[in-house]
């Protein structure tokens, strides 16, 4: 696993250096710190399209640099980045659907191969969990953009409903509604994995 960057200097101090002294080394440090979470979030939002997610992540950080002076510390820096990333993704999502999902199947296929092939000595539980993850990814891809965005912010990024509302630019009630609808669809798509079936395999 790659080494995670150390957080000796607080984000706020690095941001101040960027704004006051146009310090690009400080911004590079911020990118190193947050690239993983932003790229992971975008990979979820683009339903596994890693290439598109990385392009959007790049746009996100460039926009963050340009708008750093408007960051008012009213939210955490990571939450602010999620907001920009989500806006980039929503702008991209307005483009034709086939362009957005063009590479997804291939990417999911690669992930499937990685996920389904467990290491030596790992049991059936691991394979079942991997299969469930794939099913979840496919079910997430079938949600509407709004439902997927709300679920990704609250579960994947572990944001509160209020923080998700800030990121998505929606009222809290709308976020809750989309989460509820999304979960209903996921529950239907993943019903085979419900505990009522008593077994973990569909």
């Amino acid at each position: 696993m790659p080494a995670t960057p150390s957080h000796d200097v607080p984000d706020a101090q690095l941001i101040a250096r960027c704004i006051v002294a146009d310090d690009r080394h400080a911004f590079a440090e911020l990118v190193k710190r947050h690239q993983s979470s932003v790229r992971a979030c975008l990979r979820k939002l683009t339903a596994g399209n890693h290439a598109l997610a990385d392009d959007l992540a790049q746009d996100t950080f460039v926009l963050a640099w340009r708008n750093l002076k408007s960051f008012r510390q009213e939210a955490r820096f990571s939450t602010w980045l999620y907001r920009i990333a989500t806006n980039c993704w929503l702008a991209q999502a307005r483009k034709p659907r086939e362009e957005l999902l063009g590479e997804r199947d291939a990417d999911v296929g690669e992930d499937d191969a990685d996920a389904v092939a467990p290491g030596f000595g790992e049991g059936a539980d691991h394979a079942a969990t991997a299969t469930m993850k794939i099913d979840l990814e496919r079910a997430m891809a079938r949600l509407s953009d709004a439902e997927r965005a709300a679920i990704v912010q609250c579960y994947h990024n572990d944001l509160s409903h209020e923080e998700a509302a800030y990121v998505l630019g929606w009222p809290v009630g709308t976020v809750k509604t989309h989460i509820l609808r999304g979960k209903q669809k996921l529950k239907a798509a993943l019903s085979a994995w419900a505990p009522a079936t008593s077994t973990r395999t569909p």
Partner: protein
Amino acid sequence: MNARSTPIPEPQADWLDAFLSAEGVDDRAGYIGDDGFTARVMQELPAPVSVPAWRRPVVVALWLVAAVVIATMLPGTVLDVTREFVRLFAAIPFSLSTLGFGIVAVSIAMWTATAVALRRD
């Protein structure tokens, strides 16, 4: 933004909640390696605005030229304005504390202007 509202528990969806939460924890624990991503972002940033070194002296010289031109073209007006300024300030009685305060105020203004100019450069 730190106040968290707990999702309303749905008995039927508890297993899904638990699974989504566990997925989120797994995903957050997994770090995506940089692999040149930061370098690509830094290349995409707009180039820093560089102000040429000759700009400031040229601006000062242009202002001086403009002042000389105005003084040459409108000598009467310049003399009148100067006279009024002298009369205005001569009418105000200066104490030592007022003078000190004025010097401090002018110094602060100069330092601030210099700091702003250096920051922009």
